[in-house]
């Protein structure tokens, strides 16, 4: 009981609450403009689209939490590759669903392991390692995909697009997933260890934390979550596309940072990812509703991200 109270208190100290306030404000502005029309539909759509950002963002959050300089730029390519692998193996048949998922997760695990291998054994900075790897992965995806758009099997299609009372099934599962990750980050040895590594990796190493093993798990988890996103996104959008991962390069980093995770590492915030992902989607919806052109949407998205980062400021611990 006291543990639950402590957890609640610890959560209250997190700055993630702002991302939810932002999301609600943007939603109110949108339905204010439409006179209340489509208020529910907008929330349903936001919940659906936020799921994908949340899944990739969670992996990115774990990586960023392990310390300064750690970031995974291979997410977009991994999403594309794994989405393509899954759909090709499934070949529109429900019977191949599981095998397709296993194949896509295998491809994701391989990317994660290679990312970590470059960082650890060739001592390449994570930004360059994951970037170089993303070139290779993207090429593999292009060569493998051949520009075809393969439909998802009916079961996957139904699952990813299904909802009850306006709440997408995917959102329910993703919320449960987020809750599990939040507990893991806050209470498990792994979660506490990656925060310790992010705050001071040498101190963590001296305290007998298996630093390298946990960094490996973290890059692996990030790539696997990109794979999951790739599979679900392919189901949701009617098949994989070569640019399907592109928006998650900025998206995954932005939701982590807007959500209150420290960019200097050492402090993760899981609920903030949800608030930030909803905020980002609702922001685009609002600008669309206001009739903003593509250029204005780009400028506003960029400026708001920069403004939020600037307002939050750097890490006060350092």
């Amino acid at each position: 009981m006291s543990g639950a109270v402590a957890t609640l208190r610890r959560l209250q100290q997190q700055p993630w609450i702002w991302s939810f306030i932002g999301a609600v404000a943007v939603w109110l502005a949108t339905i204010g403009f439409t006179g209340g029309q489509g208020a529910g539909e907008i929330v349903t759509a936001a919940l659906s689209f936020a799921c994908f950002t949340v899944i990739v963002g969670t992996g990115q959050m774990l990586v960023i939490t392990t310390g300064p300089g750690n970031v995974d730029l291979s997410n977009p390519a991994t999403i594309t590759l794994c989405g393509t692998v899954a759909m090709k193996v499934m070949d529109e048949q429900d019977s191949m669903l599981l095998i397709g998922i296993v194949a896509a997760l295998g491809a994701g695990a391989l990317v994660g392991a290679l990312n970590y291998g470059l960082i650890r054994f060739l001592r390449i900075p994570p930004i360059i390692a994951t970037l170089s790897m993303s070139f290779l992965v993207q090429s593999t995806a292009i060569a493998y995909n051949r520009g075809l758009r393969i439909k998802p099997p009916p079961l996957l299609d139904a699952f990813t697009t299904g909802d009850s009372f306006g709440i997408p099934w995917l959102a329910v599962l993703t919320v449960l997933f987020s809750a599990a990750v939040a507990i893991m980050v806050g209470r498990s040895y792994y979660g506490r260890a990656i925060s310790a590594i992010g705050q001071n990796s040498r101190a963590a190493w001296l305290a007998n934390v298996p630093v390298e093993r946990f960094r490996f798990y973290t890059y692996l988890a990030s790539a696997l979550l990109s794979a999951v996103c790739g599979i679900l996104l392919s189901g949701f959008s009617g098949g994989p596309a070569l640019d399907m991962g592109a928006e998650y390069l900025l998206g995954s980093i932005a939701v982590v940072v807007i959500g209150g995770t420290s960019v200097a590492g050492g402090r993760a915030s899981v609920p903030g990812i949800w608030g930030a992902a909803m905020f980002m989607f609702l922001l685009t919806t609002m600008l669309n509703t206001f009739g903003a052109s593509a250029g204005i949407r780009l400028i506003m998205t960029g400026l708001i991200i920069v403004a939020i980062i600037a307002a939050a400021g750097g890490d006060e611990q350092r």
Partner: protein
Amino acid sequence: VTAVLNRALLRRSLPAITLAILMVAIFAKQPMTMSYFGLTLMLQYAVPIALATLAQMFVIAVNDLDLSIGTFVSLTTAIIGLYLPDAPLMGCALLVLCIAAYAGIGALIHLRRVPSIVVTLGMSFVWSGIAVIILPTPGGKAPVWLHGLMNLKVPGIPFPIIAAVVIAIVVQLALMHSSYGVVLRGSGGNPKAVARAGWSLLKTKMVMFGLAGFFGVLSGLSLIGLTGAADAHIAERYTLYSIAGVILGGGEFVGGRVSPIGAVLGAITLASAAFLLGFLQVRPDWQIGAQGAILIGVLALRAAISRSGLR
């Protein structure tokens, strides 16, 4: 001692060796390229890439990373193509404003202690948005003098080679062999020491980001001088090229360790690698992947050289 010297020398000449091997391979595969015309054609687009790479180098020297340089160069080509031929004053004013904005981003990153990758990623949307608004469809035109300059025919030596050598030497002298250059690099290598010596870190950050903006504008000028027209998305690939070029050229992410000559060599390597892949009939699908592989290969080699020094 000689072994250590040799290793340091080997490490420093790695960018040149990489480029030399690449050139030999290209000449062997396609002897036609070993001519005045062939070299001009092959290397002309290395000039804007080299300038963008130097822009990235200034940012990396102060321990930051610019993920917006590609969209920024695209925006400058749009401004140049739209305003410079007919309204040169307006065009110049806008370009100066762009450079000032870059210095402002440097100030923001320093004052709020925010990560450069997030700020510049956000700014890449802003640059792209402005470019799309002012130039929705490809258009505009290069000023006549600029087009003439970029297509200059100097007898004997192809113009891109002259341009690359001049750019590399000027930046090398200014950044590596001037006293303020040492301060600028020092603010990336040991910021505390530089601050204690009485230099403003805010100012060095703004100068380095301003220089990045300036070289971004130069990259845009040389690019539109070659293409003759502007496009809001023309240089988006330069972000990745420029980071890869700096690293290929021997630069490191932390500690102010960069090399202008290396960066120019790295940029030329990347620009001509595409030709070799084409001559080897590598499918276009694998071109980006091959560049990733080259990058990893060079870094692996460098790690091997450094590690052999530890024993």
